């Protein structure tokens, strides 16, 4: 029987995957905004803005859900992370605040021409900063650089998150989100040329993702050996690794053949499997090696109520999300 704490941790993982697939892609959009180039520069930006605008706030809430589940379900883990990762979390928050604000300011300024360039830059840069530090934080709780005794981190405020492994995971996250965004954007327009712009971008960023996956893997063998050992030696690892690899190759091939719907499905699968693999290797730890899921869990009365509320909430949430995406993402694209 699976414990309440594990069940809640799994829900949090689902939330994190949803955030990566949806909110992550919105960050990726910011990167493509600053990298917009060629004869269709302006139209690329309009496409990105139009695709993100109706959904980014809803997509962003997945992160809030994850963090709320973390502090309700696993308060000591949340507390320890907040202390040890104070600086990268704060930098991520600054990225999140500036991204959302700048995007909206640019879009809603009635005298847009005056401020467009400034807000565009802030939007793009903060779209890179936020996922980078999200990746850094995830790497830090995996690597074993945070040691906790009696609930208080003892490893200081810099050492836990400054390191090649953490930074490479940060860049990996940025690349992954850029890849997702480019793949999704091919489906946001009927304009063949614009589609091709983002097809090329998806292919390039896909290659960059592969590069950073390799670098991260190599660094893990030195800096996160326990994590890597588990990732490479558990029974579930090969089906998962092969699945991830196949999804990646499949996404590439379908992009090549302009099968964008399939590419979107496979890219999303690839990202989900990466996170599933990460979480499986992380299990049973929330912060390796001192904080375990079971020990950090809130009282059962809380966990049970949380799970009941989550199950009930799903009945409101999923139909609403379905309606939102049906309205704005059902393939009825308009010319840019």
């Amino acid at each position, binding site marked *: 029987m699976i414990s309440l704490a594990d069940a809640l941790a799994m829900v949090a993982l689902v939330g994190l995957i949803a955030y990566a697939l949806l909110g992550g892609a919105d960050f990726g959009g910011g990167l493509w905004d600053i990298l917009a180039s060629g004869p269709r520069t302006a139209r690329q930006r309009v496409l990105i803005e139009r695709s993100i605008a*109706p959904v980014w706030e809803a997509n962003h*809430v997945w992160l*809030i859900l994850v963090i709320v589940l973390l502090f309700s379900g696993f308060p000591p883990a949340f*507390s320890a992370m907040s*202390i040890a990762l104070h600086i990268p979390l704060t930098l991520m928050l*600054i990225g999140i605040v500036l991204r959302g604000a700048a995007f909206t300011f640019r879009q809603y300024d009635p005298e847009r021409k005056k401020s467009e360039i400034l807000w565009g830059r802030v939007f793009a840069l903060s779209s890179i900063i936020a996922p980078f530090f999200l990746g850094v934080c995830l790497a830090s709780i995996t690597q074993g650089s945070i040691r906790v005794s009696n609930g208080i981190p003892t490893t200081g405020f810099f050492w836990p998150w400054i390191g090649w492994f953490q930074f490479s995971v940060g860049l990996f996250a940025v690349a992954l989100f850029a890849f997702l965004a480019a793949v999704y954007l091919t489906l946001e327009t009927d304009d063949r040329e614009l589609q091709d712009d983002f097809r090329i971008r998806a292919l390039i960023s896909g290659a960059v993702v592969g590069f950073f996956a390799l670098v991260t893997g190599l660094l893990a063998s030195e800096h996160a050996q326990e994590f890597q050992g588990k990732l490479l030696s558990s029974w579930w690892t090969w089906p998962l690794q092969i699945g991830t690899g196949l999804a990646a190759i499949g996404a590439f091939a379908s992009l090549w053949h302009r099968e964008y719907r399939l590419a979107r499905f496979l890219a999303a699968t690839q990202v989900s499997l990466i996170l599933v693999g990460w979480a499986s290797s992380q299990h049973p730890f929330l912060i390796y090696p001192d904080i375990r899921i079971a020990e950090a869990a809130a009282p059962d009365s809380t966990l049970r109520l949380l799970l009941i509320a989550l199950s009930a909430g799903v009945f409101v*949430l999923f139909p609403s999300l379905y309606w939102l995406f049906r309205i704005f993402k059902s393939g009825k694209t308009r010319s840019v």
Partner: protein
Amino acid sequence: MDNILFARWQMGISLVFHIIFACIGIAMPLMMVISEYLWHKTQDNDFLLLTKAWAKGTAVFFAVGAVSGTVLSFELGLLFPEFMRHAGGVIGMPFSLEGFAFFTEGIFLGIYLYGWDRISKRMHLFAGIIVAISGASSAVFVIMANAWMNTPTGFRLENGVFTDVDPIAAMLNPSSLHLISHMLLAAYMATGFAVAAIHAYVLLKFPNSGFHKKALAISLFLTVPCAVLQPAVGHFAGMQVAKNQPMKLAAMESQFKTEKGAPLRIGGIPDAKTRTTSFAIEIPGGLSFLANGDFGSEVKGLEEFPETDWPHEAVHYAFQFMVALGSYLLFISLWAALTWVRKGWTDYGRKFLIAAVIGGPMGFLAMEFGWIVTEMGRQPWVIYNIMRTSDSVTPMPGLFVPMTVFTLIYLALGVTVISILRRHVKASPVYAERTKEGA
């Protein structure tokens, strides 16, 4: 200043900032829905234009509210990790429900703002109603968590560990009801009066603009009943505070001595050294009546509590300012109600318009002062009588830096939002028409 003060300042500035945007996110959808409904009923195009104009403003405020709210949920841990380590399991429930409410609000606001020509008129209005409801529910849940900090229930304390946790009992703590009702009314009042002031200002320049008359009428329609109800709810809140947090009440009223028939002080300068409050207008027995419903009853003074625990004097001043500002808004509201009876919904005299413009920022100011009373009055406790704020603060050194950074960011965002709002007002009908004529 030391770390605890930096942490409290950062939390305070984050809340002071976020609350404004959160309230607008609660109240504007209701006003938009009323306006859109009137458009359906009357087919008057002004209402459609008004709904869309308000929606544009709301989009900006909602976005800033969403991201600043995210900062707060992290800051609970970044600044007060010991608090979250112990309390997370008890008050996580309302935060999770708030997460769902906020999710729903975000989804339907997306549909509302961008779905004008993609869904039917009826479904569009429905989406707006959901936004208004979920916005108010978010507030309800978050305030429950805050109320618990003031009057913690739903657990047993054993050697400093919370056991027998009952999250539902924690949500239904004795402060929830009055804080929620006081705050929801305040949200509608603050937003409604601010919007009324903007349209009143335009009407002073263009007295015949039907568009702005209707806008003013809707905002007053929402806010006048709230302003009239608020004193009663405030009285109820005062009685609850007297019962559950007597030290806070004593600080609000600068009641140093425990006495029977304690007077209600209007204004006044408290002096902790001599334990007296001078220059106040005193209404004999008033505080006793407000606290206990009996002019002769006993009210506990600050002397009952260790002086080192007394809340800052600012609580007294903030409370006085809140009541004063609220009274002014009540006065405008009665004036507006009188106008409705005598001249109908849309015709307001010049004097009233000036009074409404002056009242514009007062709702938000009163609300901020009210929060200062609630939260500074809770000090030195983060969980009332259980955990001290100073014991919950992060060991992270150098909090001066993030405090400064967030203060500057929020200042910059505040200035930008106001300047964008001004441009929106300038793009509204009348201004737009006049520009056309001039061209």
